[in-house]
Structure formats: structure tokens, C-alpha cells
């Protein structure tokens, strides 16, 4: 489904951010439209994660504004419209006593509200989310007993359980083997095309971005490129930023894009 460029779900307007005296982001502006599949790439330390945290409301920009669904980020209350899939490696505690079902249920909590219990409809959404990611058979397994790829699917299901309109993913396939990575991106493609779910994917994996996404923003303190992935891989900016150490070199299995 084509994206609707008239509806801005996320609008980043001249955003800057610094840790102490170190400038991380400088004058970042771009928008995410409904139906977009945006890849955010850039070198390590270029500010991708910081930008993501600003979008999510975890950090406040030093200058500039972020608008979510048309309202200023700090006033935005319908947080469940924003699904978040964190980096796998940092998120899971192997010994944490929670079943897959308990983890996915967390996705409903903010929607259900304080002091309220999950209802039958919430249970239905939880099961459906698990089915969407192909993990319905694992409901009663402990999260720590699953492989990295399976855990990542559970986190996807947790984000989907909130019935979001945008899904924001931070390096979702770090530590996931190649076969399961491909399955994972297939799932994302399907969510984007069949459900028209807007996706924002932060990754250092240029191959994935070139193959999967419809839009690309390259962040290295400033927005060094914003447009289609196809143009980016042929642009001088890519060579300038990634040079010869480009990520795709590591992927012997996949097709070369250039």
C-alpha cells in the first residue's frame, strides 16, 4: 500500500541534542508519514539511538520540537499508538520468571489503565498478536528459554498487542541468526503492506534497508540523506559515511545491491 504523504505521524522539526558539551544531533528535520517504512541508518555514535529516544519521549531535545500525531511530544497522551521493539540483546534477562504470555500481556497494560485487570478482549488480542508473529505455540514457555530470534518475535507481539499505528524498532535483529533475520523482515514487510502499519527501523544494516524499506534517513549528527534507499546506495554520501567498512560486506549470503 502506498504511503500517504499528507498525514504526518511523526514530525521532527529542527531537533538538536547534546550530552554535556558533546553535540550529538544538530538541526534534524524530517517527517514519517502514514504507511511509510522508514529505515534510519548511520554510523555508530552518529546519533541514531539518541534520535529514537527523543521520538519515544525518553529524552527531551535541547532545541526543536517533535510532533506525534499532530500534537507536541510532551503533551501526547495516546502512547499506545506508538509501539516499541527494543534491542534484543539488552532487553532480556534470562532468569526473569515470565512466560511468553505474561510478556505479551505487558503490551496491553497501558491501554487497560491503572488499577484495572485484563479482560477477555485483551486476552484475544494477546493470542492474535502471538499468532501474527508465529509464536502462538510458545505461550506457556519461559521467555529466558527461547532463542534470540524467538524472543524478538515475542517482543514484536508485545508491541503489536498495544494495537499501535507506528512500530519503532531499534536494531531488532542484533544477535539473531541469518535465517531468522530473513523471517523477521518478511514479517515486517507483511505488517507494512497488508495492515498498512507505519514502521521506523533503526539499523546499521544497510543491506536490509536497501532491500526492505521505502524511505531512508541517514543520520550522522545531521540528516546527511533523506529519500529513497535506491538513490542512497548510488549516492556519494554513502561512500563518504560508510567508506569501505560498510556493514553489507559482512553479508556474504545476500545479494549485492550496488
Amino acid at each position, binding site marked *: 500500500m502506498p504511503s500517504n504523504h499528507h498525514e504526518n505521524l511523526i514530525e521532527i522539526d529542527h531537533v538538536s541534542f547534546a550530552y554535556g558539551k558533546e553535540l550529538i544531533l544538530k538541526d534534524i528535520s524530517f517527517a514519517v508519514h502514514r504507511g511509510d517504512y522508514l529505515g534510519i541508518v548511520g554510523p555508530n555514535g552518529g546519533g541514531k539511538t539518541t534520535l529514537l529516544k527523543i521520538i519515544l519521549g525518553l529524552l527531551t531535545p535541547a532545541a526543536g520540537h517533535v510532533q506525534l500525531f499532530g500534537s507536541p511530544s510532551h503533551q501526547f497522551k495516546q502512547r499506545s499508538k506508538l509501539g516499541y521493539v527494543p534491542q534484543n540483546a539488552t532487553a532480556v534477562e534470562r532468569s*526473569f520468571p515470565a512466560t511468553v504470555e505474561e510478556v505479551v500481556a505487558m503490551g496491553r497494560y497501558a491501554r487497560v489503565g491503572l488499577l484495572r485487570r485484563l479482560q477477555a478482549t485483551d486476552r484475544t488480542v494477546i493470542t492474535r498478536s502471538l499468532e501474527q508473529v508465529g509464536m502462538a505455540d510458545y505461550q506457556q514457555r519461559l521467555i529466558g528459554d527461547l532463542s534470540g530470534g524467538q524472543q524478538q518475535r515475542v517482543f514484536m507481539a508485545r508491541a503489536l498487542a498495544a494495537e499501535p499505528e507506528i512500530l519503532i524498532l531499534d536494531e531488532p535483529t542484533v544477535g539473531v541468526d541469518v535465517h531468522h533475520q530473513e523471517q523477521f523482515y518478511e514479517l515486517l514487510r507483511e505488517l507494512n503492506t497488508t495492515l498498512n502499519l507505519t514502521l521506523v527501523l533503526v539499523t546499521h544494516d544497510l543491506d536490509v534497508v536497501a532491500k526492505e524499506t521505502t524511505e531512508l534517513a541517514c543520520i550522522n549528527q545531521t540528516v546527511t540523506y533523506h529519500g529513497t534507499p535506491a538513490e542512497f546506495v548510488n549516492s556519494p554520501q554513502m561512500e563518504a559515511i560508510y567508506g569501505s567498512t560498510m556493514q553489507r560486506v559482512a553479508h556474504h549470503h545476500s545479494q549485492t545491491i550496488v
Partner: protein
Amino acid sequence: MTNLFEYSFIIRGLEAGIIVALIAPLIGIFLVLRRYSLMADTLAHTSLVGIALGLLTGMSPLVAAVLTATASSIVIERLRYSRRIYGESALALFLSGSLAIAIVLINVGNGLKANLFSYLFGSIVTVQQSDLTVIAILGIIVVAGLVGFYKELVYISFDEESAQVSGIPTRWINQLLIILAAVTIAIAIPIVGILLISALIVIPVVTALQLKKSFKLTLLWAELFSVTAVVLGIIAAFYLQISAGAAIILVALGFFISVFLFKGRS
């Protein structure tokens, strides 16, 4: 053999003990999973300041302990949140600082020493009917708070960042947990004593975690270990003429060692 239920102080001790045994794992599971076990020890030491103040001024030491532990918990959480010092350092400051203040207060009020001993090591014989009322009321408040915000506490313990992104007010729920921990610790003092409280909060939970169950079942097992340890500990203390606090912790430790060895073999 004497029947221990003929003694009203044992009945009161058991009643207070069971209340404390029920709420300790509820607090403990969240503290343990968030790597916050040292918080229990720290709040116990800040309670000692309240005990000393209570003994000096004639105020109920139990109520004074609840007040100082709660006040400290608020300051500790603010310090941690400000990120000007490490969370762990904040705990160390309060742990040693409050012990120093308590010692000075004890020095000032000569003759507190004898009384103080029972607070350090616990003494169920000193539990008065009025204490039991305070323990029951505060126990109900702690349970209500934890049950009311159970699902948010679970989410924050598992993945605080995602919980915050999803719109859960993580900051004040964290604060609530620490305040309820402070209250729990203060009312546990008469049962196990300041020096052993963190063991009662931590050991049953750590034992239940070895069983590798869902969150709900882990909590239920922790409750079972905790209540059994307290009841058996108090009974053993009565017949063997030993300290109840120490007996409770030894039973809890016995459960842990058994479960740990059993799970290690299978």
C-alpha cells in the same frame, strides 16, 4: 510438652509474623528482580534511627521506624533519579549514615542499649496488641498498593524503558514501590530484627526463582516458603529457646539450600 498456643505472646507473634511473611515476598520479588536487594538492608538501617528516636522521645518505636524509613526511601529514590550519584552509592550513604546517627542517639540516651538489642535481633515477645494493630493496618495498605499496581510493577521490573514508552508512569510507581518496601521493613523489625530483615525479603524469592516458573507461580511459591519459614521458625524458637528471627532465617535458608541442590541435580 508445653502447648505454645497457651501463651498469648506467641499467638500475637505468630499473627504479626504471618502478616509480615505474606508481604515480604510481594516486595521482595520486585526488589530482587531489579537488583535492588541492598535497598532492604539500607531501609532496615534507616529504621534503626526511628527506633532510637522513638525510645528517646517515648513515641512508639514501630511508628517512628515507619516514618524514618519512608522519609529515607523518598530521598534515596530522588538521589537515584537525579543521577548525580550512582544508585548503589546512595544506598551505601544511607546505610552507614543512618547507623552512625542511630549510634549517636543511643550514646545520648544512656540505658537504651538493653531495649535496642531486641530491635536488632527481633523479639516477638515484645509485640504488643497495639503493635499488632499497626502491623495489620500497614500490612493491608502494602498489599493493596502492590496488588493495585501489580501489572505495572511487573512490566517495569522486566523492561523499564518499554514500560515508560508505553505510557506507564514509571517514576511514581518506582517511588511507590520503595515507600511500600520501607513500610514493610519497618513493621518486620519486631519479628526478625533489623539485621535479618533483608534475608526474609530476599531468601524466599531467590528460592522460588530456582523453580523457574511463571511470574505468578514464582510469587506463590515465594509466599509458601516465606510463611512456612516464619511459622516453623517461631515454633522452633519457642521449644529450643533460641531467637525467633534467627530461627526463621535458618529455616528459609534450609529451603533455599534444598531447592538449589535438588534443582541442580535434576
